[in-house]
C-alpha cells in the first residue's frame, strides 16, 4: 500500500499553526512513519524546486495556513493546488483572512507610510520604501509584491476542506489529520475539526436570558466567572462562532473573539453577531437601538476580528 502523500505550507501567518501541528508531539513522529511528508518548508529540507518537480495531482493532501498577502503567497497556493488532489485551508488566516486581514481596514500605501516613514523611531528622511525590483550596485534584487487587499485561500484557489481556529486546538488537529490518513471524509467544502453548533453550546457558563442595558469593555469590569459574559454586558462572539475549541478563552474569564469563524449557513459572522446582540439588548425604542450600535466602539475589529477577508465587507476602504 502506498503511503498518503502530505504537504504543509504557510502563507501570511504567525507560525502558530505550525506550532499547533508540532503540538502533536510524539504523535507527529508516528504520523511521519505512517505518511509521506513531501513538502514542509518550515520543517523539512524540500524547496520550491522540489515542489515544482512533483507531477500535478501527485500529492494526496496539502494543508495551507496563512492568508494571501503577497505575490509569493499566491504563487505557492496555486502551485500546491495544481500538485494536490485535496487542498485544505488550515487555521483562521487561510479560512477567513485572520488577524492579517485587519489590513483590509487600511491600504498598502498607508501601511508602507506607517511602517517605513511615520513610526516614531523610523529615521528615513529620503522616504525610501521597499521595492519589488531593485537594481543594486552588484545586481538585481527582488522581493514579492505586497498586496493592497488580504485574501482568504479560497479567494485565489479552489479549496476542498476548512480547518478553522487561531490556531486549531491540538485534539482537533490530531483528529483531522487521522481523517485524511484514513480517507474517511465528508463532502467537499466541509469544515473539519470544529463543531457545527455555536461556542455557547460548549460554554460552561450559566445563562439566564437576562437582558442588558449597555455594553461594557473588558477592562472596565471584573466579570463573574460563572455567568455568561454577554449577559454581563461584555461582547462575546460565542453566539456567532463555531465551537470546537473547548471554550478555552471563556475558561480564562475572557470573551470569545470569534477565531473559529462563522456558523454553518451563516453568511456573515458580524451580521449574525449583531442580531444576537440585538436580541439580548433591552431595547424599548429606536434610540435604544442606536445607543447599542454606538456602544460597540469598533464594530469591524470586533465582529470581523478574524473574518474580515471572508465577510461580505471584504475590506472597509477602497
Amino acid at each position, binding site marked *: 500500500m502506498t503511503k498518503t502523500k502530505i504537504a504543509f505550507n*504557510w502563507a*501570511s*501567518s*504567525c*507560525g*502558530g*499553526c*505550525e506550532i499547533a501541528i*508540532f*503540538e502533536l*508531539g510524539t504523535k507527529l*513522529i508516528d504520523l511521519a512513519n505512517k505518511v509521506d511528508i513531501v513538502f514542509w*518548508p*518550515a*520543517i523539512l*529540507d524540500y*524547496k*520550491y524546486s522540489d515542489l515544482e518537480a512533483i507531477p500535478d495531482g501527485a500529492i494526496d493532501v496539502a494543508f495551507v495556513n*496563512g492568508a494571501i*498577502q503577497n505575490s*509569493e503567497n499566491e504563487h505557492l497556493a496555486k502551485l500546491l493546488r495544481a500538485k494536490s488532489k485535496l487542498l485544505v485551508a488550515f487555521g483562521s488566516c487561510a479560512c477567513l483572512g485572520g*488577524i*492579517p486581514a485587519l*489590513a483590509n481596514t*487600511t491600504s498598502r500605501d498607508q501601511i508602507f507610510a*506607517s*511602517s517605513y516613514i511615520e*513610526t516614531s*523611531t*523610523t*529615521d*528615513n528622511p529620503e522616504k*525610501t*520604501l*521597499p*521595492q519589488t525590483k*531593485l537594481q*543594486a*550596485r552588484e*545586481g538585481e*534584487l527582488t*522581493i*514579492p509584491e505586497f498586496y493592497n487587499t488580504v485574501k482568504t485561500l479560497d479567494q485565489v484557489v479552489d479549496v476542498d476542506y476548512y480547518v478553522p481556529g*487561531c*490556531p486549531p486546538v*491540538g485534539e482537533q488537529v490530531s483528529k483531522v489529520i487521522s481523517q485524511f490518513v484514513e480517507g474517511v471524509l465528508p463532502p467537499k467544502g466541509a469544515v473539519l475539526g470544529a463543531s457545527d453548533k455555536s461556542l455557547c453550546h460548549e460554554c460552561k457558563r450559566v445563562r439566564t436570558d437576562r437582558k442588558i442595558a449597555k455594553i461594557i*469593555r473588558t*477592562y472596565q469590569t*471584573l466579570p463573574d466567572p460563572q455567568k455568561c459574559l454577554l449577559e454581563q454586558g461584555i461582547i462575546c462572539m460565542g453566539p456567532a462562532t463555531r465551537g470546537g475549541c473547548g471554550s*478555552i*478563552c471563556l*475558561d*480564562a*474569564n*475572557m470573551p470569545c*473573539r470569534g477565531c473559529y469563524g462563522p456558523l454553518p449557513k451563516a453568511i456573515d459572522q458580524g451580521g449574525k453577531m449583531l442580531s444576537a446582540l440585538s436580541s439580548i439588548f433591552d431595547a424599548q425604542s429606536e434610540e435604544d437601538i442606536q445607543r447599542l450600535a454606538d456602544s460597540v*466602539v*469598533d464594530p469591524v*475589529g470586533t465582529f470581523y*476580528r478574524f473574518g474580515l477577508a471572508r465577510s461580505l465587507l471584504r475590506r472597509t476602504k477602497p
Partner: protein
Amino acid sequence: MKTVTINPVTRLEGHGKISIFLNDEGNVENAYFQVPELRGFEKFCEGRPVEEMPDITSRICGVCPEAHHIASTKALDAVFHVEPPPAAKKLRELLYSAFFVADHITHFYVLAGPDFVMGPTAPKAERNILGVIAKVGLEVGSSVIKHRSDALDIIAAIGGKRIHPSCGVPGGVSKPITEDERNKIEAISKSEVEFAKFTMKLFDDIVLKNKDYVNLITSDTHATETYCMGTLDEQNRVNFYDGKIRVVDPEGKEFAKYPPADYQQYISEHVEPWTYLKFPYLKKIGWKGLIGGKDSGVYKATPLARLNVAEGMATPIAKAEYKRIYETLGHKPVHSTLATHWARLIELVYAAERMLELSQDSEITSPNVRTIPTAIPDEGVGAVEAPRGTLIHHYKTDAKGMVKGVNLIVATTNNHAAISMSIKQAAEGVIKKGEVSDGILNVVEMAFRAYDPCYACATHTLPGQMPLHIKIFSKNGAVIRDIRRP
C-alpha cells in the same frame, strides 16, 4: 558578476532569501539577507480598542506569542496608568518564565544542540534532533518533549491557551490560579529545574570537557563586536519580565541605561529598499551601515548580549553558571557567536529556577489579580526581554482608549543588522576565487542559528536543520552550481 542565491531560506516565516554577489575575481562583493514579508500591524491596529491589543498583537508571532502578549499587557498598564496587584505581576512573570523554559529547551535540543552534541563535523544526516536522541537515548528525547509540553501546560493554566494566551488585561490578569493548579505548577517547576540542570551537565560533558569545542568557542572567527543590549533588575541582574534597559559598548563599558519608556531617545530604525524588515540602531551613534565596532550603532540583543550587559543572575544555580562562563572564557564581554548557545542554557536554568520560586510564592494564589483602571487612557510603553531580544510595544490612544498610534520594536529585528553581517562574513569565509565550498551550508546556517531568529520559529521542530539551497548563476543566468543540504 556571478550571483549566488539562497532561496528560500526556510523558517523565516516560511520565506527568506540570501543573495550573494561575487566580483570579477570570484570573491564576495556583497551579500544581502532579504526579508520578503510585511503584515502591517502598526497601521491596522489603529482604530482598535487598546485593551484588545494583547489579543491582536500576539498574532505577530505564533512561536513567541507570550512575549507580545505580555509586552502588550504591560503597555496597557502604562496607557491606563494602572498598577497591577502583586499576584498579577507574579502570575505574568510565572507564565513568562514557563515560556522561556519551553522556548530555550526547544532551541537547544532541536536547533542548536545537534552541532555540539553530534559535533560540527559529524555527518549531516546525524546532525539533528534524531541524531541527538540516538546518541543520548530515547529517554532523553521523550524528556525533551515532556518538559516542553509541561511548560505549555503552565502557560495554558494561567493564560487559557497553549498558543496565543488570552489572560492579559490592563491592571492585571483575567483570572487567579487555584491551590490545586499551583500544586501542579510547583511539581512541574521542580522537574523543569532538574531538567535544566541535566541540560547544563550535558553541555558540560559534551562541550566544555572537550578542548576542541572550547577552542571553537574561544577562537570563533564569526565574532561580531558590537554594542549589547538587555533588561536588568535594580541589582543589574538579568530579568526577562521587567527592569531597565542597559546598553554596553563593544568593550563592555556602560553606554546607556534607561527605562523602556525612554526607548525613542536611544533607538532609531533604518530602512533599505531591498527588504521589508527595518534595521534598528543606537540613535546617538548613528547608522553607519552593516559594520560592527564602537563607531557603528549596530547592536545585539541575544542571550549572550543580556549576560554581557548584566553583572549576574538572580537565582543560585544560574548565578554560579554565570560566574563560570566568564571565568572559562577569560574575558567580558564575550562576542563569540557560539557562546550564545551557552548563554541560552544559563538563561534556561534561571527561567526554571524563577518559575519554581514564583510557584512557591505565598501570594501567587491570591484572588486579587486585577486593578480596574480609573484614569483616562493616553499613551504607554511596555517592554519585556523576548528570547531573541528586547521587545517594545508603544501605544497612543484617544481619551476613549481607541488606538491612534502604534510603534513596535520586535525582538529579532534588533539583531537584523548583526545577522546580516554574520551572513556576509560567513559567505566571505567560504567563497574564494569563485570556488564555493560545500561548507557554505553549515557556515551560513551556524551564522543564523546562534541568533535563534524568530523566523526560525517553527524550526523548533524535527529535524532541526536549516534546509538550504544555493544556486550559483553565471552572468547570463545559467545555473553553474547547485548545492543542496542532503
